[in-house]
């Protein structure tokens, strides 16, 4: 079943083509899109099963043997992330069926969404550095389309800012890939891992620093995250949840591949620098969130802050650090997407995303309050939710390596995260609505939104109450990465 390795690209790409052809018939298009995401989910499950059985799906295109042909290889790390990509795509598509801030219908929305999934899937599946660049470009062009199809002035404004900063990132990545090829003569991960051992430390630092800088822009790491809070809040909610869950995590995954697998062990100065960058990312992200009162902008800054934790896990390195990074990424994608979905349901019921204009949901919709608390407290890291185990893994490893400053920053950021979540809870749920005549609208169509958000909350609870399967999986994944002894 070698062709299975290509399905993270093939299935969404085929869905993109079919939904584009059906763009004049909305019902057919929606049916094709549902079938496409279902197929993607099944393929992702098969990939996880193959990877767990230590027979990762592997294909080299054009019948060229591995270091020469472009290779796709879905190991445990890649398979878990492909599965979570398919799940998030499914949740976003389900949420689109509700009337909670789905944006105006556009014939190209579904094709672009599946194109985005193809880009993300390709980035997780590929084992070739230049191919990784290509998937970053596929993601970039699809996200730009999804930003721009709303055509509101603020959305066009956000598209421009997103375009300029991300284009600079991909160009930097292209330069870095060219330099790596010039120095080693390889692009395949396996061949690069061998060739990288021959590099002098000085050259290695320069090449990897260029790569990491490019991935850092994509991941939203300090000080290169300005594009993220400047643009994300203009998106319709299901797309925002999808972007928040997946896009920055592809950058983080690329950092993990670089420092934790292909080029491991890299010169120590890079891990040290990444650790400080991670601490700054956590701190500045959460401080940005503390200032804002728009739920989407608060949550967008929290993406930045949480990226810091994952980068910290990668900076700690070794099998334990890499396992923590994978565990954290999976937890974070689910929780962050869910928070944006719940925020959109709050918007539908109260009429605004701005906390100064809303309130009263504790009395009107107590179930929604409980639903919000699951991802919110998980983001903070309150036991027994998934965020607690993720943070525990990272901080345990940080303390084991004697990194007291990074640990203290991470704990401080957790407290500030709690402040932000409590702000949303107090303002949107606890306080009465500023307009005394406000009643929750009766004509809402929120059932699909509830289904998507409850499903994600269920996953969070499942990981939180029974973390051992995911932890064992993450540890096994880290054991096959290059950093493992």
């Amino acid at each position, binding site marked *: 079943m070698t062709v299975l390795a290509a399905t993270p690209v093939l299935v969404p790409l085929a869905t993109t083509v079919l939904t584009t052809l059906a763009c004049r018939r909305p019902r057919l298009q929606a049916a094709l899109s549902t079938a496409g995401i279902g197929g993607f989910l099944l393929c992702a499950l098969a990939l996880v099963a193959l990877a767990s059985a230590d027979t990762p799906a592997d294909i080299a295109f054009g019948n060229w043997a591995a270091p020469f042909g472009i290779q796709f290889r879905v190991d445990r790390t890649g398979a878990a992330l492909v599965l979570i990509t398919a799940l998030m795509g499914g949740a976003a598509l389900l949420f689109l069926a509700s*009337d*909670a*801030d*789905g*944006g105006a219908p556009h014939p190209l929305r579904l094709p672009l969404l599946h194109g985005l999934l193809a880009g993300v899937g390709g980035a997780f599946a590929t084992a070739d550095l*230049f191919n990784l*660049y*290509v998937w970053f*470009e596929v993601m*970039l*062009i699809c996200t*730009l389309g999804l930003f*721009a199809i709303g*055509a*509101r*002035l*603020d*959305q*066009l*404004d*956000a*598209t*421009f*800012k997103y*375009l*300029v900063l991300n*284009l*600079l990132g991909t*160009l*930097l990545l*292209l*330069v870095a*890939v*060219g*330099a790596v*090829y*010039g120095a080693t*003569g390889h692009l395949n991960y396996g061949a690069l891992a061998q060739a990288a051992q021959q590099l002098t430390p000085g050259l290695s630092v320069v090449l990897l620093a260029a790569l990491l800088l490019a991935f850092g822009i994509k991941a939203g790491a300090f000080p290169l995250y300005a594009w993220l809070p*400047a*643009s994300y*809040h*203009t998106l*319709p909610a299901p797309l925002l949840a999808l972007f928040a869950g997946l896009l920055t995590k592809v950058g983080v995954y690329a950092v993990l591949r670089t420092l934790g697998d292909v080029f491991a062990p890299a010169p120590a100065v890079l891990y040290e620098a990444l650790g400080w960058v991670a601490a700054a990312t956590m701190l500045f992200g959460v401080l940005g969130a503390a*200032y*804002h*009162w*728009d739920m989407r*902008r608060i949550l967008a800054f929290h993406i930045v802050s949480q990226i810091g934790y994952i980068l910290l896990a990668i900076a700690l390195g070794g099998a334990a650090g890499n396992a923590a990074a994978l565990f954290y990424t999976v937890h974070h994608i689910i929780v962050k997407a869910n928070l944006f979905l719940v925020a959109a349901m709050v*918007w*539908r019921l109260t*009429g*605004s*995303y*701005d906390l*100064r204009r809303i309130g009263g949901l504790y009395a009107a919709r107590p179930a929604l309050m409980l639903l919000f608390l699951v991802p919110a407290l998980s983001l903070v890291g309150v036991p027994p939710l998934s965020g607690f185990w993720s943070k525990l893994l990272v901080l345990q490893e940080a303390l084991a390596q004697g990194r007291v400053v990074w640990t203290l920053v991470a704990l401080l950021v957790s407290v500030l995260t709690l402040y932000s979540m409590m702000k949303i809870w107090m303002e949107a749920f606890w306080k009465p609505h500023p307009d005394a005549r406000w009643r929750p*609208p009766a*004509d809402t*169509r929120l059932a699909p939104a509830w289904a998507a958000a409850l499903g994600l909350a269920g996953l969070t609870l499942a990981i939180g109450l029974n973390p051992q399967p995911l932890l064992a999986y993450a540890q096994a994944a880290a054991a096959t990465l290059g950093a493992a002894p």
Partner: protein
Amino acid sequence: MSALLAFTIWVTLSAGLYLALSRDMLRCVLGLAMVGGGANLLLFASGRLTSAQPAVVVAGEQALGAAANPLPQALVLTAIVIGFALLCFSLVLLLRLIPAAGTDDSQALRSAEPPVTDPFKPPLPQPGCEPPWPPEAPR
């Protein structure tokens, strides 16, 4: 030859970066296209610069000898196509954005992030820059 190409890449990249730092949005996009051109040249150079020998491995040998490696040339082609598509997209975006915003100064572009008016609390979103509520009924 290498020195000349390195100088060309340097000039292209610096001119591109200078333009990309401009507040004029059109200049910024053109600057990014120039940076893309510089990046492509750099990628091209990673495959060695030699005289016009064919990239064919001589029978009985394992390596390419003195000819240039053709792989980066294929990579550059891919990168050029992608860069061209993104340039087209960004020009069309500007054609929509500049008339809609009434300005081509990126500093004056404050629809997504309204300017700060209060020392403590962030500004409220500008009218017309929020999703309409209540949402329209489905067709």
